């Protein structure tokens, strides 16, 4: 699977460079997408649309998995969730995040959240609710839903916004928004690092878009909470998240969380963060803010 994922990443990168390779990419990736659809269909026979049809057709990632970290993920019904492929090989994030950490994090922790979540929603009304609805009404549900829905979704976003060739700085509209809110990229960088370093215990730091103002803001959350949950004081649409649970970095960094946080930027895929930013405005009419 690791090899396959690595191959897909290569194809995605190529697609951005050369339009002719889209045909090739579709031909290669489609069979795996169909496999995923078949698996989902067999569980939900009455559904008209396969999961992938809910997603934007322009996204190649939507073909390889129903969950890609894209904005559309929020509107997928919980009962139709599938555990997504890692969008690169386990060693792709070396030396920032070591192979063993990525493997255990993805295959044990993340998969555990997914399995527990699916078990918790099976046969309940939540199967028909979107993640967006569940997070927005989180206070209505037991802690098991909150912890595992968050754990599932947060990691999908986390994997999606990193890449082997990440790093650099944002540009375009996202950079404009960052400068508008924080004054400069450096000021943003500092504030985000502080949020990630000072979250006490398990949790996440986020860059999100404020539902009220459409502007960016930085927060951190405990455990597997996220800014979409109605348990949060300030709510918004997360476009960048860093996992600061010790399991995200302990094998390589031990107590030195600050080093992990600072190195993280070298694998951050700003293009994907920009895509999340665009998702928010593209999906504005579907967000019941």
């Amino acid at each position, binding site marked *: 699977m690791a090899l396959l994922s690595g191959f897909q990443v290569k194809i995605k990168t190529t697609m951005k460079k050369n339009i002719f390779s889209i045909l090739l990419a579709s031909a290669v990736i489609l069979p795996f997408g169909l496999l995923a659809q078949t698996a989902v269909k067999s569980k939900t026979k009455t559904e008209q649309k396969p999961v992938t049809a809910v997603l934007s057709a322009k996204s190649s990632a939507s073909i390889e998995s129903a969950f890609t970290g894209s904005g559309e993920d929020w509107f997928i019904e919980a009962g139709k969730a599938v555990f997504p492929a890692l969008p690169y090989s386990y060693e792709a994030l070396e030396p920032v995040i070591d192979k063993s950490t990525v493997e255990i994090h993805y295959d044990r922790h993340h998969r555990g959240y997914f399995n527990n979540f699916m078990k918790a929603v099976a046969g309940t009304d939540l199967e028909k609710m979107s993640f967006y609805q569940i997070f927005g009404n989180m206070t209505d549900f037991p*802690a098991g839903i909150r912890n595992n829905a968050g754990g599932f979704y947060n990691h999908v976003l986390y994997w999606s916004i990193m890449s082997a060739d990440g790093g650099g700085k944002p540009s375009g509209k996202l950079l404009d928004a960052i400068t508008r809110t924080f004054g400069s990229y450096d000021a943003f960088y500092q504030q985000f690092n502080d949020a990630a370093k000072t979250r*006490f*215990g398990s949790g996440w730091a986020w860059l999100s878009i404020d539902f009220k103002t459409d502007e960016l803001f930085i927060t951190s959350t405990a455990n597997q909470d996220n800014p979409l949950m109605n348990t949060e004081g300030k709510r918004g649409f997360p476009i960048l998240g860093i996992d600061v*649970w*010790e*399991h995200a970095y*302990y094998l390589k960094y031990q*107590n030195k969380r600050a080093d992990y946080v600072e190195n993280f930027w070298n694998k951050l895929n700003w293009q994907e963060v920009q895509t999340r930013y665009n998702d928010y405005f593209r999906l504005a009419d579907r967000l019941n803010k």
Partner: protein
Amino acid sequence: MNFEFPQLPYAYDALEPHIDKMTMEIHHTKHHRAYFDKFTAAIQGTDLESKSMEAIFAEISKAPLAVRNNGGGFYNHNLFWEILSPKGGGEPTGKLAEAINTKFGSFEAFKTKFNDAAANRFGSGWAWLSVDNDKNLCVCSSANQDNPLMDVHDCKGTPIMGLDVWEHAYYLKYQNRRPDYIGAFWNLVNWNKVSENFEKALK
């Protein structure tokens, strides 16, 4: 300043194979040390400097967050190292054994309850065996570095035994398998020390 950073009462490799040497060394010299340093820095020059840990925790809701997190981190680890021993394991005896049987029905039932508290604490935290205000035993868990002495805690009492379930306590050896770490913990419990803590808490 009343507070001192304690030496470990055994060698870093003394708890092998249940807790590995590297985990113990980092846990004590980095994590525990950092809590101590930050705690003493946070109370320096304040009224808290002359108070006992128990008195600080009793009004922790009025103290800055740095005191709660680092004071808890300092105290909790002190207790944790003390109730572990390379010669630990087995079962409690005497008054503590009687109190466990009275409260939980049996030692096995108590163990199950404590294991559940430790396994089900989501995220960073601790599982505790405490003596509550009515002098009864109780099992609970707390988030992060909170403990039953704190006025913010919903299961108040005097902790006599604690298990650290932050990932840093077990990740190098056990990774995502927290239940295996919890299982191994029982081979290390210093019941003499827990009994001593129990007797003190009853007074």
